[in-house]
Protein backbone atom coordinates (compact mmCIF):
# COMPACT_ATOMS: atom_id res chain seq x y z
CA UNK A 1 0.00 0.00 0.00
CA UNK A 2 1.41 3.41 -0.82
CA UNK A 3 1.73 6.16 1.73
CA UNK A 4 -1.02 8.34 0.28
CA UNK A 5 -3.59 5.58 0.61
CA UNK A 6 -2.68 5.14 4.24
CA UNK A 7 -3.01 8.85 4.81
CA UNK A 8 -6.42 9.29 3.19
CA UNK A 9 -8.25 6.08 4.02
CA UNK A 10 -8.61 5.20 7.69
CA UNK A 11 -7.81 1.58 8.40
CA UNK A 12 -11.17 0.73 9.93
CA UNK A 13 -13.02 1.97 6.82
CA UNK A 14 -10.85 -0.15 4.54
CA UNK A 15 -11.41 -3.22 6.67
CA UNK A 16 -15.14 -2.76 6.16
CA UNK A 17 -15.32 -4.41 2.73
CA UNK A 18 -14.08 -7.74 1.48
CA UNK A 19 -12.40 -8.16 -1.88
CA UNK A 20 -9.96 -10.55 -3.58
CA UNK A 21 -6.33 -9.73 -2.82
CA UNK A 22 -5.54 -8.99 -6.48
CA UNK A 23 -7.81 -5.94 -6.56
CA UNK A 24 -5.55 -2.89 -6.37
CA UNK A 25 -6.30 -0.32 -3.75
CA UNK A 26 -7.64 2.39 -6.09
CA UNK A 27 -10.39 0.16 -7.53
CA UNK A 28 -13.70 -0.36 -5.79
CA UNK A 29 -14.43 -3.79 -7.27
CA UNK A 30 -12.68 -6.50 -9.29
CA UNK A 31 -15.12 -5.80 -12.16
CA UNK A 32 -14.12 -2.13 -12.22
CA UNK A 33 -10.44 -3.07 -12.26
CA UNK A 34 -11.05 -5.48 -15.13
CA UNK A 35 -12.95 -2.96 -17.22
CA UNK A 36 -10.32 -0.29 -16.61
CA UNK A 37 -7.58 -2.69 -17.77
CA UNK A 38 -9.52 -3.55 -20.93
CA UNK A 39 -10.25 0.09 -21.61
CA UNK A 40 -6.56 1.00 -21.30
CA UNK A 41 -5.61 -1.85 -23.65
CA UNK A 42 -8.11 -0.62 -26.22
CA UNK A 43 -6.68 2.92 -26.07
CA UNK A 44 -3.27 1.42 -26.85
CA UNK A 45 -4.71 -0.67 -29.68
CA UNK A 46 -6.36 2.43 -31.17
CA UNK A 47 -2.94 4.11 -31.36
CA UNK A 48 -1.66 0.95 -33.07
CA UNK A 49 -4.52 1.12 -35.57
CA UNK A 50 -3.59 4.74 -36.35
CA UNK A 51 0.06 3.69 -36.76
CA UNK A 52 -0.74 0.98 -39.33
CA UNK A 53 -3.33 3.20 -41.04
CA UNK A 54 -0.63 5.67 -42.06
CA UNK A 55 0.89 2.86 -44.14
CA UNK A 56 -2.52 1.84 -45.47
CA UNK A 57 -3.11 5.46 -46.58
CA UNK A 58 0.26 5.50 -48.38
CA UNK A 59 -0.68 2.19 -50.01
CA UNK A 60 -4.04 3.61 -51.16
CA UNK A 61 -2.50 6.65 -52.82
CA UNK A 62 0.36 4.83 -54.55
CA UNK A 63 -1.91 2.02 -55.67
CA UNK A 64 -4.08 4.58 -57.46
CA UNK A 65 -1.09 6.32 -59.02
CA UNK A 66 0.87 3.25 -60.14
CA UNK A 67 -1.88 0.66 -60.51
CA UNK A 68 -0.22 -1.45 -63.30
CA UNK A 69 2.97 -1.72 -61.22
CA UNK A 70 0.93 -2.83 -58.20
CA UNK A 71 -0.90 -5.48 -60.25
CA UNK A 72 2.33 -6.92 -61.66
CA UNK A 73 4.06 -6.74 -58.28
CA UNK A 74 1.14 -8.52 -56.59
CA UNK A 75 1.28 -11.29 -59.22
CA UNK A 76 4.82 -12.12 -58.04
CA UNK A 77 3.56 -13.13 -54.61
CA UNK A 78 2.61 -16.73 -53.85
CA UNK A 79 -1.14 -16.75 -53.35
CA UNK A 80 -1.10 -20.17 -51.64
CA UNK A 81 1.40 -18.93 -49.05
CA UNK A 82 -0.71 -15.85 -48.32
CA UNK A 83 -3.91 -17.89 -48.03
CA UNK A 84 -2.22 -20.49 -45.82
CA UNK A 85 -0.88 -17.75 -43.56
CA UNK A 86 -4.35 -16.20 -43.30
CA UNK A 87 -5.74 -19.59 -42.23
CA UNK A 88 -2.89 -20.07 -39.71
CA UNK A 89 -3.51 -16.66 -38.19
CA UNK A 90 -7.29 -17.08 -37.98
CA UNK A 91 -6.76 -20.47 -36.30
CA UNK A 92 -4.36 -18.85 -33.81
CA UNK A 93 -6.96 -16.16 -33.03
CA UNK A 94 -9.50 -18.89 -32.32
CA UNK A 95 -7.09 -20.81 -30.07
CA UNK A 96 -6.23 -17.56 -28.24
CA UNK A 97 -9.94 -16.88 -27.66
CA UNK A 98 -10.20 -20.42 -26.24
CA UNK A 99 -7.17 -19.75 -24.00
CA UNK A 100 -8.91 -16.69 -22.54
CA UNK A 101 -12.04 -18.79 -22.06
CA UNK A 102 -10.02 -21.48 -20.24
CA UNK A 103 -8.55 -18.83 -17.93
CA UNK A 104 -12.08 -17.62 -17.25
CA UNK A 105 -13.12 -21.21 -16.41
CA UNK A 106 -10.00 -21.48 -14.19
CA UNK A 107 -8.67 -24.52 -16.06
CA UNK A 108 -4.90 -24.37 -15.87
CA UNK A 109 -4.11 -27.29 -18.17
CA UNK A 110 -6.55 -26.16 -20.86
CA UNK A 111 -5.13 -22.63 -20.66
CA UNK A 112 -1.58 -23.92 -21.15
CA UNK A 113 -2.64 -26.20 -23.99
CA UNK A 114 -4.46 -23.48 -25.95
CA UNK A 115 -1.58 -21.06 -25.39
CA UNK A 116 0.88 -23.67 -26.66
CA UNK A 117 -1.18 -24.20 -29.84
CA UNK A 118 -1.37 -20.42 -30.33
CA UNK A 119 2.41 -20.20 -29.93
CA UNK A 120 3.02 -22.95 -32.49
CA UNK A 121 0.64 -21.34 -34.99
CA UNK A 122 2.29 -17.94 -34.47
CA UNK A 123 5.72 -19.43 -35.13
CA UNK A 124 4.33 -21.29 -38.14
CA UNK A 125 3.12 -17.99 -39.55
CA UNK A 126 6.60 -16.49 -39.19
CA UNK A 127 8.19 -19.53 -40.87
CA UNK A 128 5.91 -19.26 -43.91
CA UNK A 129 6.51 -15.49 -44.04
CA UNK A 130 10.25 -16.07 -43.82
CA UNK A 131 10.08 -18.58 -46.66
CA UNK A 132 8.24 -16.01 -48.80
CA UNK A 133 10.76 -13.27 -48.02
CA UNK A 134 13.60 -15.61 -48.90
CA UNK A 135 11.88 -16.43 -52.19
CA UNK A 136 11.44 -12.73 -52.99
CA UNK A 137 15.10 -12.10 -52.23
CA UNK A 138 16.04 -14.90 -54.68
CA UNK A 139 13.86 -13.26 -57.34
CA UNK A 140 15.47 -9.82 -56.81
CA UNK A 141 12.33 -8.15 -55.48
CA UNK A 142 13.86 -6.37 -52.47
CA UNK A 143 14.09 -2.60 -53.18
CA UNK A 144 17.34 -0.92 -52.21
CA UNK A 145 19.20 -4.18 -51.55
CA UNK A 146 18.51 -6.66 -54.29
CA UNK A 147 16.14 -5.35 -56.95
CA UNK A 148 15.79 -5.90 -60.65
CA UNK A 149 12.97 -4.81 -62.95
CA UNK A 150 13.55 -7.60 -65.49
CA UNK A 151 10.68 -9.67 -64.09
CA UNK A 152 8.28 -6.86 -64.94
CA UNK A 153 9.37 -5.80 -68.43
CA UNK A 154 8.46 -9.11 -70.09
CA UNK A 155 5.23 -11.13 -70.03
CA UNK A 156 4.88 -13.48 -67.07
CA UNK A 157 3.83 -16.92 -68.44
CA UNK A 158 1.52 -17.41 -65.44
CA UNK A 159 -0.33 -14.21 -66.32
CA UNK A 160 -0.33 -14.09 -70.14
CA UNK A 161 -2.86 -11.24 -70.21
CA UNK A 162 -0.49 -8.93 -68.30
CA UNK A 163 1.16 -6.45 -70.63
CA UNK A 164 4.89 -5.95 -70.04
CA UNK A 165 5.44 -2.73 -68.14
CA UNK A 166 7.13 0.30 -69.69
CA UNK A 167 10.56 0.93 -68.06
CA UNK A 168 9.31 3.89 -65.98
CA UNK A 169 6.28 1.96 -64.67
CA UNK A 170 8.47 -1.13 -64.05
CA UNK A 171 10.58 1.07 -61.73
CA UNK A 172 7.41 1.81 -59.77
CA UNK A 173 7.11 -1.84 -58.72
CA UNK A 174 9.75 -0.81 -56.18
CA UNK A 175 7.06 1.32 -54.51
CA UNK A 176 4.83 -1.74 -54.28
CA UNK A 177 7.58 -3.93 -52.86
CA UNK A 178 8.74 -1.20 -50.44
CA UNK A 179 5.21 -1.03 -49.03
CA UNK A 180 4.97 -4.81 -49.06
CA UNK A 181 8.16 -5.30 -47.04
CA UNK A 182 7.40 -2.42 -44.66
CA UNK A 183 3.85 -3.55 -43.92
CA UNK A 184 4.49 -7.30 -43.67
CA UNK A 185 7.74 -6.56 -41.78
CA UNK A 186 6.03 -4.40 -39.16
CA UNK A 187 3.27 -6.98 -38.90
CA UNK A 188 5.85 -9.74 -38.40
CA UNK A 189 7.57 -7.56 -35.77
CA UNK A 190 4.26 -7.38 -33.90
CA UNK A 191 4.01 -11.17 -34.17
CA UNK A 192 7.52 -11.59 -32.70
CA UNK A 193 6.67 -9.28 -29.80
CA UNK A 194 3.43 -11.23 -29.29
CA UNK A 195 5.28 -14.56 -29.28
CA UNK A 196 7.80 -13.30 -26.69
CA UNK A 197 4.98 -12.05 -24.43
CA UNK A 198 3.10 -15.32 -24.94
CA UNK A 199 6.10 -17.39 -23.83
CA UNK A 200 6.36 -15.24 -20.69
CA UNK A 201 2.63 -15.62 -19.99
CA UNK A 202 2.91 -19.41 -20.42
CA UNK A 203 5.74 -19.44 -17.87
CA UNK A 204 3.51 -17.53 -15.43
CA UNK A 205 0.47 -19.69 -16.21
CA UNK A 206 2.57 -22.80 -15.54
CA UNK A 207 2.97 -21.51 -11.98
CA UNK A 208 -0.78 -21.15 -11.62
CA UNK A 209 -1.25 -17.48 -12.55
CA UNK A 210 -4.41 -16.31 -14.42
CA UNK A 211 -6.56 -19.25 -13.27
CA UNK A 212 -7.31 -17.80 -9.83
CA UNK A 213 -9.94 -15.36 -11.12
CA UNK A 214 -7.41 -12.64 -11.96
CA UNK A 215 -6.96 -12.92 -15.71
CA UNK A 216 -6.71 -9.31 -16.96
CA UNK A 217 -3.21 -9.91 -18.34
CA UNK A 218 -4.22 -12.91 -20.45
CA UNK A 219 -7.38 -11.15 -21.61
CA UNK A 220 -5.44 -8.04 -22.70
CA UNK A 221 -2.83 -10.14 -24.46
CA UNK A 222 -5.71 -11.83 -26.31
CA UNK A 223 -6.87 -8.40 -27.48
CA UNK A 224 -3.36 -7.67 -28.79
CA UNK A 225 -3.18 -11.02 -30.61
CA UNK A 226 -6.58 -10.47 -32.27
CA UNK A 227 -5.48 -6.98 -33.30
CA UNK A 228 -2.43 -8.42 -35.08
CA UNK A 229 -4.80 -10.87 -36.80
CA UNK A 230 -7.01 -7.98 -37.98
CA UNK A 231 -4.03 -6.18 -39.52
CA UNK A 232 -3.26 -9.31 -41.54
CA UNK A 233 -6.93 -9.65 -42.56
CA UNK A 234 -6.46 -6.33 -44.39
CA UNK A 235 -2.90 -6.91 -45.60
CA UNK A 236 -3.76 -10.20 -47.31
CA UNK A 237 -6.34 -8.98 -49.89
CA UNK A 238 -4.56 -5.65 -50.41
CA UNK A 239 -1.12 -7.13 -51.13
CA UNK A 240 -1.83 -10.60 -52.54
CA UNK A 241 -5.16 -10.36 -54.30
CA UNK A 242 -4.82 -7.38 -56.66
CA UNK A 243 -6.51 -8.32 -59.91
CA UNK A 244 -5.68 -12.03 -59.86
CA UNK A 245 -8.09 -12.67 -62.75
CA UNK A 246 -5.86 -11.06 -65.39
Amino acid at each position, binding site marked *: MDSQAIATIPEQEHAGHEHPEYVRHHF*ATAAQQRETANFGMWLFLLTEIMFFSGLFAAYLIYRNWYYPAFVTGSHQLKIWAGTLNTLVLICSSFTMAMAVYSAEMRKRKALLRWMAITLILGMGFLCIKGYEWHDEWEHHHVPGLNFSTTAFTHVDPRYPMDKPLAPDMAEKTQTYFSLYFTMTGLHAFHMIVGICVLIFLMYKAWGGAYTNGHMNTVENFGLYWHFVDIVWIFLFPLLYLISRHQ
Partner: protein
Amino acid sequence: MSEPTHHTHTVVPPRVYATVFGILLCFTALTVFASYFELGTFNAVVALAIAVIKAVLVILFFMHIRYSSRLTKLTISAGFFTLIVLLLMTMTDYISRAWGMW
Protein backbone atom coordinates in the same frame (compact mmCIF):
# COMPACT_ATOMS: atom_id res chain seq x y z
CA MET B 1 -18.42 5.66 -1.21
CA SER B 2 -20.34 5.68 -4.47
CA GLU B 3 -20.58 2.47 -6.46
CA PRO B 4 -18.80 2.34 -9.83
CA THR B 5 -20.84 2.00 -13.01
CA HIS B 6 -22.10 -1.53 -12.99
CA HIS B 7 -21.46 -3.73 -15.98
CA THR B 8 -22.13 -7.46 -15.79
CA HIS B 9 -19.41 -9.55 -17.33
CA THR B 10 -20.52 -12.13 -19.88
CA VAL B 11 -18.62 -15.34 -20.43
CA VAL B 12 -18.70 -16.05 -24.16
CA PRO B 13 -19.37 -19.78 -24.75
CA PRO B 14 -16.93 -21.74 -27.02
CA ARG B 15 -19.87 -22.43 -29.38
CA VAL B 16 -19.84 -18.71 -30.35
CA TYR B 17 -16.07 -18.77 -30.93
CA ALA B 18 -16.36 -21.88 -33.10
CA THR B 19 -19.15 -20.34 -35.19
CA VAL B 20 -17.21 -17.11 -35.73
CA PHE B 21 -14.10 -19.16 -36.57
CA GLY B 22 -16.06 -21.10 -39.23
CA ILE B 23 -17.46 -17.90 -40.75
CA LEU B 24 -13.96 -16.36 -40.87
CA LEU B 25 -12.61 -19.41 -42.74
CA CYS B 26 -15.51 -19.23 -45.23
CA PHE B 27 -14.88 -15.53 -45.87
CA THR B 28 -11.17 -16.21 -46.42
CA ALA B 29 -12.03 -18.79 -49.09
CA LEU B 30 -14.57 -16.38 -50.59
CA THR B 31 -12.13 -13.48 -50.85
CA VAL B 32 -9.54 -15.64 -52.68
CA PHE B 33 -12.27 -17.05 -54.95
CA ALA B 34 -13.68 -13.58 -55.73
CA SER B 35 -10.28 -12.21 -56.72
CA TYR B 36 -10.18 -14.57 -59.74
CA PHE B 37 -13.27 -12.93 -61.28
CA GLU B 38 -13.15 -9.85 -63.46
CA LEU B 39 -15.29 -7.31 -61.60
CA GLY B 40 -13.45 -4.12 -62.55
CA THR B 41 -13.40 -1.59 -59.70
CA PHE B 42 -15.60 -3.92 -57.68
CA ASN B 43 -12.74 -6.39 -57.13
CA ALA B 44 -11.25 -3.94 -54.63
CA VAL B 45 -14.68 -3.14 -53.17
CA VAL B 46 -15.52 -6.84 -52.63
CA ALA B 47 -12.06 -7.58 -51.14
CA LEU B 48 -12.35 -4.64 -48.72
CA ALA B 49 -15.97 -5.41 -47.81
CA ILE B 50 -15.03 -9.00 -46.90
CA ALA B 51 -12.01 -7.77 -44.90
CA VAL B 52 -14.20 -5.28 -43.00
CA ILE B 53 -16.81 -7.98 -42.21
CA LYS B 54 -14.05 -10.29 -40.93
CA ALA B 55 -12.49 -7.54 -38.82
CA VAL B 56 -15.88 -6.60 -37.33
CA LEU B 57 -16.55 -10.26 -36.42
CA VAL B 58 -13.16 -10.52 -34.72
CA ILE B 59 -13.73 -7.27 -32.81
CA LEU B 60 -17.30 -8.10 -31.74
CA PHE B 61 -16.81 -11.71 -30.65
CA PHE B 62 -13.12 -12.64 -30.22
CA MET B 63 -12.41 -9.25 -28.63
CA HIS B 64 -15.71 -9.29 -26.68
CA ILE B 65 -16.86 -5.83 -27.75
CA ARG B 66 -20.37 -7.19 -28.32
CA TYR B 67 -20.45 -7.80 -24.55
CA SER B 68 -18.51 -4.71 -23.40
CA SER B 69 -19.65 -1.62 -21.55
CA ARG B 70 -21.01 1.39 -23.42
CA LEU B 71 -17.91 3.37 -22.51
CA THR B 72 -15.64 0.90 -24.32
CA LYS B 73 -17.98 0.63 -27.31
CA LEU B 74 -18.19 4.40 -27.66
CA THR B 75 -14.42 4.86 -27.35
CA ILE B 76 -13.69 2.31 -30.06
CA SER B 77 -16.35 3.77 -32.35
CA ALA B 78 -14.84 7.22 -31.82
CA GLY B 79 -11.41 5.83 -32.72
CA PHE B 80 -12.61 4.31 -35.98
CA PHE B 81 -14.64 7.44 -36.80
CA THR B 82 -11.49 9.55 -36.39
CA LEU B 83 -9.60 7.12 -38.61
CA ILE B 84 -12.20 7.44 -41.38
CA VAL B 85 -12.08 11.25 -41.12
CA LEU B 86 -8.27 11.21 -41.40
CA LEU B 87 -8.32 8.90 -44.43
CA LEU B 88 -11.06 10.95 -46.15
CA MET B 89 -9.22 14.24 -45.56
CA THR B 90 -5.99 12.76 -46.94
CA MET B 91 -7.75 11.41 -50.02
CA THR B 92 -9.66 14.68 -50.60
CA ASP B 93 -6.35 16.52 -50.57
CA TYR B 94 -4.65 14.17 -53.04
CA ILE B 95 -7.63 13.94 -55.40
CA SER B 96 -8.05 17.72 -55.59
CA ARG B 97 -4.35 18.39 -56.26
CA ALA B 98 -3.49 15.98 -59.04
CA TRP B 99 -6.24 16.42 -61.61
CA GLY B 100 -6.21 13.70 -64.20
CA MET B 101 -4.14 11.26 -62.18
CA TRP B 102 -7.22 9.56 -60.74
